[in-house]
């Protein structure tokens, strides 16, 4: 299953027509202790680059953006009870939401793991 990355520090796993989206380990490290996550409602229509979720650390609220166009099929309900999952397992159990892929060609604009690592190293 290919994993893509955005310049906004989201990761995207693609399985058929469904993408699972979360924030990267680098992102959680920058944010620090996560105390609240607001995931989008099922059925919400997202467009690439638009607001999708909100993640709140002790210090501040940050927006999480939709990596591609699509419709939300599921939010990670576990994050409501245990937002610290984003710190402990950001690229696994701490996923944010799943969405349909309206236009798979949008994935071509995203980075692979090696390119994302280079991107972070340059920050």
């Amino acid at each position: 299953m290919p994993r893509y990355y955005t310049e906004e520090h989201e990761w995207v796993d693609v399985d058929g027509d469904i993408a699972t989206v979360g924030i990267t380990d680098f992102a959680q490290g920058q944010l620090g202790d996560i105390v609240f996550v607001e995931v989008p409602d099922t059925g919400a229509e997202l467009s690439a680059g638009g607001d999708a979720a909100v993640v709140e650390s002790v210090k501040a609220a940050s927006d999480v953006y939709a990596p591609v166009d699509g419709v939300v099929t599921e939010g990670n309900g576990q994050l409501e009870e245990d937002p610290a999952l984003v710190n402990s397992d950001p690229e696994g159990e701490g996923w944010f939401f799943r969405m349909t892929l309206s236009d798979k060609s949008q994935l071509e604009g995203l980075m692979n793991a090696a390119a994302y690592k280079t991107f972070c190293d340059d920050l």
Partner: protein
Amino acid sequence: MREDEEVAVETATLPLDAWHRAKGGRMVEFAGYWMPIQYDGIMAEHLWVRENAGLFDVSHMGQISLSGEGAAEALEALVPGDISALKPGRMRYSLLLGEDGGILDDLMITNEGDQLGIVVNGAVKWEDIGYLRENLPDDITLNHEEDYGLLALQGPKAAEALARLVPQASALVFMQAARATWNGHAIGLSRSGYTGEDGFEISLPNEALTAFADALCAMEEVEPIGLGARDSLRLEAGLPLYGHDLDEEIDPVEGDLAFAISKRRREEGGFPGAARILGHLADGSPRKRVGLLVEGKLPVREGAKLFDGNTEIGIVTSGGFAPSVGAPIAMGYVPRDHAAPGTAIAAEVRGKRVPCTVAAMPFVPHNYVRKQGG
């Protein structure tokens, strides 16, 4: 995630800059300086201070001295505290007032014997210095002590730790100050702080800061603490942050700081905006700073509007997750008739109404040491 941090090109470095970076501090621009927002993480640092002792670098704050015949009386023309009654070795929280009684800054004033020491907020120190210089008589000498840094050691183990380096520390109680010597350096000590815990603020020559910070952090009960935890600690302690919870539009009564208006000054007036402030003291102010307990987990932050039903009644001026409370808390301004603890209101966050209850502050009890042996 998108980061929109803009960093001013002229951001200055503090004497401990390299020390913070070596300790793993994540540096951010604050009040014109690079300062550590955190080392290990805000939550862990916050809880460390409540249990142990945390070292904060607050060298961005302005340290000012006033000397000359009648300095205390002259300063009273600009603040509502009884400064002339302040005994040597005692300090007092006060407010620098604008012409209309609005708060230009909150500050600590210490009678150092031969002079008055004033510590002001870093973000407005240049304005404060200008205002003081302009409004104090020419025969009062004002020095900006830029050769000194300021450290705060806060937490229940602070006294024990500091006494190993400066034995005189144990002799002080809350809001007392003294001069001391450490490794040949003249230093100033006070038992005070901004966390609600027992603790000290230590003024040292810049060249002594690194060695002093190292000596403290070599002790197992002391860890360096960043600005992030400083903010969450002071919020739990119910202490306002200038520029957020207080500003030049807000007077001391509105800001719930009437305790800073001394008895004699209430009777005599003679401070800026006395008519407005004494009127608010007598009749209550139309709005007041209050604490808010937030229902649920969604943090309510600065700028959130407050509602009673569909009526907008006020605004949140500080807020966030409170590690020692284990829930979000906030402070903000509400009309007088909504200021009683227990009043149910709501805050608006991203279009949602979050129920809040007006709460007495502090949210976490203060642990000040007010009596020797106490």
